[in-house]
């Protein structure tokens, strides 16, 4: 949780220095939900997510160097500088991507769960989404498929109260989002996202249910984002200062820290040492990103198609782009 918090604070600083660009969605305040949900995943379990990716990627074990590298648009990034903040991915770690179209990842997650079922693997898929994504048809279609095909899919709704500036109450006919699972005779439950251990307990149980019993479910995690929708939104036009202050009193990191010390599970010194290590790790990720090369312009058309022949064929299909795909692709192919 501390790594995610400090990492994102660094991301915001780097964004202000224009070393990171495009859309950038921070999730400070949501670390309990993120870590609670993802920490109980096994290596063979798969994670899909929305565009609010950084914490989820780190929690799934994606190397911070690769996350920062991607944000810097470098070859060493998890998508080699092609995807940016919204489109992190680490296939080897079972993180199948951040996706930018609201709810677009839901059917994909159902499909990954289908593969698990098809191959009779002991694994499950977790799909993170926002509260507002529950109003997209794609969610309902994906849940229905998961229900009728008995897919090992846990849909995790990060209910941070708002989709951009619109509250859940305003946007949803049934604002108790977990109850919507009932429409598919699917298990749904709600958990306090500021209590990381409560989330952990729930996600562990539901993943197990998906893995072993092939029962899909919906887990609604109540949480809050301190920052605006993205770095471009101050986040103050649609909510009150009091509300924001109220939520900060239940900061997931502070709460967990207090509990650990109170219950004698860790000393303050232990925790400070972790903070220190994490700080260093974040600094190191920036250094790694800086050291990683920028993707050369000649590689513009690389990765468009898998087989070299198609890549070559389409490289010749370049009408009218004077410094565009024609020359660039040819260079990219090493000609």
């Amino acid at each position, binding site marked *: 949780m501390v790594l995610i918090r400090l990492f994102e604070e660094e991301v915001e600083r780097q964004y202000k220095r224009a070393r990171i660009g495009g859309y950038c969605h921070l999730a400070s305040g949501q670390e309990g939900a993120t870590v609670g949900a993802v920490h109980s995943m096994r290596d063979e379990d798969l994670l899909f997510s929305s565009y609010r990716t950084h914490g989820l990627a780190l929690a799934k074990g994606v190397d911070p160097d690769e996350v920062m590298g991607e944000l810097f648009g470098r070859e060493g990034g998890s998508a080699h500088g092609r995807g940016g903040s919204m489109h992190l991915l680490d296939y080897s770690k079972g993180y199948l991507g951040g996706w930018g179209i609201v709810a677009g990842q839901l059917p994909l997650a159902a499909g990954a769960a289908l593969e698990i079922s098809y191959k009779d693997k002991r694994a499950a898929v977790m799909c993170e989404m926002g509260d507002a994504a529950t109003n997209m048809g794609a969610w309902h279609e994906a849940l229905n498929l998961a229900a009728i095909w008995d897919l090992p899919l846990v849909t995790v709704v990060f209910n941070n109260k708002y989709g951009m*500036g619109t509250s859940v109450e305003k946007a949803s006919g049934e604002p108790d989002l977990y109850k919507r699972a009932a429409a598919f005779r699917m298990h749904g439950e709600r958990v306090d996202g500021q209590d990381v251990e409560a989330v952990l307990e729930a996600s562990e149980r539901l993943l197990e249910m998906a893995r072993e019993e092939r029962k899909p479910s919906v887990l609604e995690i109540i949480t809050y984002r301190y920052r605006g929708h993205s770095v471009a939104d101050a986040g103050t036009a649609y909510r009150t200062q009091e509300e924001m202050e109220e939520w900060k009193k239940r900061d997931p990191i502070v709460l967990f820290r207090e509990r650990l010390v109170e219950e004698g599970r860790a000393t303050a010194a232990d925790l400070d040492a972790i903070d220190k290590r994490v700080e260093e790790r974040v600094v190191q990720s920036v250094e790694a990103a800086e050291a990683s090369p920028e993707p050369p312009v000649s590689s513009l058309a690389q990765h468009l198609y898998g087989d070299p022949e198609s890549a070559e064929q389409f490289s010749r299909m370049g009408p*009218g782009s004077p410094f565009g795909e024609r020359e660039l692709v040819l260079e990219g192919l090493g000609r």
Partner: protein
Amino acid sequence: MSATAPAPSTTTMTYREAVRLALREELLRDEDVFLMGEEIGVFEGSYKVTAGLFREFGPIRVRETPISEEGFVGAGIGAAMMGLRPVVEIMTLNFILVAMDQVVNHAAKIRYMFGGEVGCPLVIRTPNGGGSQLTAQHSQSFEVFFAHTPGMKVVAPSTPADAHGLMKAAIRDDDPILVVENLQSYKVRGEVPDDPDRVVEIGRAAVTREGSDITLVAHSFAATRALRVAERLKRDHGVDAEVVDLRSLRPLDTETVAKSIQKTNRALCVDEGWATYGVSAEIASRIQRACFDDLDAPIERVGLAEVPMPYAKQLERAAIVNDDKIMAAALSVLDLGPDVFSY
């Protein structure tokens, strides 16, 4: 005419303000006009186009929607079949894809499929565009998908005056129409006539700069770029480029384009979207038919590199259409610079 008529009074405003003014005037003019879309009320629109309208007209005329594009675009179509005049905002063009079925399979089909019994006076307005590292799923300009579809109309103004006049015409039009705005154009400033009854006719291109040496054909923000490049061509090379701003993609004003090229004998089509099967492909095809004997050089095109938009700055810069690329392409067509087109 004996005396010159007094020039109509105008106000300088941004493209964004011009769209807002058109919406406001039409909301005032016709009670059946209402706006619908995500974040267009309290939040005042993702790009602040609808700022102030929620306060002025309230939640019925400026209806906020959940993130449910397929649902609320479809609802717009149904309401339009009943005679209302919905103006549906899609936050950016990219998100219309989840409502594509409602637009292409429903809105565009209604009048013809039911033998003219019922129409669909729907406006969908949305910005296209890229160039701010918004990456593959958020940087697209595929308005041509809709221009490809019989039953749809598509307009793509580049100036504040056209944004204002075409929006008003679109709202008064009896058929489904996509009004393509542009993220970069929103801050463009220009004169807008004060007459609230003025509309810009749909389906008419505009010659926005006269010239005799080459015709640059473009729409949306590419038309603004084309004007800038025309000035550079004049300054640096003494070339007089004519610029035709298509303004409307469907219906398409081939006549104005052809007339220009019959004069200049050279044509370069510029489109911020992918060229392959694109707007410029359509234009080139029509020009070769209408101007076959007039052409002194092959018709050429500049478009977005044929890749999903990459994130890294220098890759994005290489992918997008910019002034330098248009310039090099124009010089190539004019035989004044290196040939950047032959394979």
